[in-house]
């Protein structure tokens, strides 16, 4: 109970600070839009073949835009050495991780949910045909991205080249999970059901989320105290 209340306090703080300036979420969404545009030039989306790769495209955009939110997550604590105050407070690392993770999750998911219809229009895809399974993939994939990203955000926050190091470290770790999310999204966006062999990707997503979340919960204290 106490633990949960502290998690909520941290989440609420992050969300409130973000809502004041809306900088990370606006920028992240605008960035998603710009990348969507950029990719649509690189890969002519009117062709039939390109539509097959839309799942991949979607997750590329989500990952790039999500990284911005994640980058901000601990960077937000830097300006006045706020991180010190947070570490000094009697809050366990796990609560901090979950609190910040939840806030990031909400923000990234919000960006994704706005980007999805835009994507549908630009790439002329009727993505709603398998709505709920797609949402499940979105939630699982996003939580994977968030849990790894939050820990790595804490790891890289004091590095001079933070903005580069975060994606550099996170992307390779994410690749197996992204692969699953891409494959599933491609299927679902095309209106097909996930059956037979392909359900293994769902298991992979679940497995990843569980492993990374537990690793993060355990390691957060160490990361924060260096």
């Amino acid at each position, binding site marked *: 109970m106490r633990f949960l209340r502290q998690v909520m306090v941290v989440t609420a703080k992050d969300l409130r600070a973000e809502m004041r*300036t*809306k*900088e990370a979420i*606006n*920028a992240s969404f*605008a960035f998603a*839009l*710009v990348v969507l*545009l950029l990719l*649509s*030039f690189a890969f*002519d*989306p*009117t062709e039939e073949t390109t539509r097959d790769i839309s799942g991949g495209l979607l997750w590329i955009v989500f990952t790039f835009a999500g990284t911005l939110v994640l980058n901000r997550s601990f960077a937000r604590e830097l300006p006045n050495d706020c991180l010190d105050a947070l570490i000094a407070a009697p809050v366990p690392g796990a609560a901090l991780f979950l609190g910040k993770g939840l806030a990031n999750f909400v923000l990234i998911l919000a960006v994704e949910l706005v980007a999805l219809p835009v994507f549908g*229009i*630009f790439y*002329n895809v009727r993505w709603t045909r398998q709505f709920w399974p797609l949402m499940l993939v979105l939630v699982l994939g996003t939580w994977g991205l968030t849990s790894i990203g939050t820990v790595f955000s804490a790891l890289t926050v004091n590095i001079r080249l933070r903005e580069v190091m975060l994606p550099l470290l996170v992307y390779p770790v994410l690749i197996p999970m992204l692969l699953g999310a891409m494959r599933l999204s491609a299927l679902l966006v095309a209106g097909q059901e996930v059956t037979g062999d392909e359900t293994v990707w769902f298991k992979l997503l679940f497995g990843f989320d569980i492993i990374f979340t537990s690793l993060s919960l355990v390691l957060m204290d160490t990361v924060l105290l260096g």
Partner: protein
Amino acid sequence: MRQKVILAMLALAAVLLLPNLYVISMLPDEMRQGQIFRIIFFHVPAAASAMIGSAVALVASVLFLLTKNFRYDALAVAVTEVGLAFLAVNLVTGSIWARVIWGVWWAWDARLTSALICWVLYAGYLILRQALEEPTQRATFAAVYSIFAFTDVPIVYFSIRWWRTLHPQPVFFSKTGSFPPDWGRAFMINMLAVFLLYAALTMIRLRQEETQREIDYLRRTVHAI
């Protein structure tokens, strides 16, 4: 005084627009496109006023850089913000039109794309403003950005000439254009009404901006113990 001018403009726009809507609805359907062709009465004026807005923003930005007078900065924001809304109207109406005519909401042709980029550019302008706290710096940097952003506007305009586009070639103000005279009249009136609306909204926004600056000033004075 300002208030009255704004009200008068709004009233005039309404007087022009409302009867004209009736005229438009009574016009015969276009041969190939039918009903949907009427959307042009809003699609084009929205685009034209947004583009003129961009030009005004450019001029205001340059003037701000030259004079450092915050009036021009306020004008630039107001005009850009309203222009963004009008460009959105253009994009949405175009999109609806495309859905009916081409069967898709969006196609990546040069006109559509450059218009979308234009929207993103000016949205970036607003995001940049939001990110800068110090007002002088905000105004200066936004002005510089606005100048760069304007490079896209000629591309939007000329895209249909430079590239082979899905988007129709010009029908107004060109020799090849064929437009029945009664259509033309209704169109021009609509254009005028939309321009008036644009100008009125800009002025309202301008007033807001000035009030905001006053509030900022008062709050800062209070906070400076």
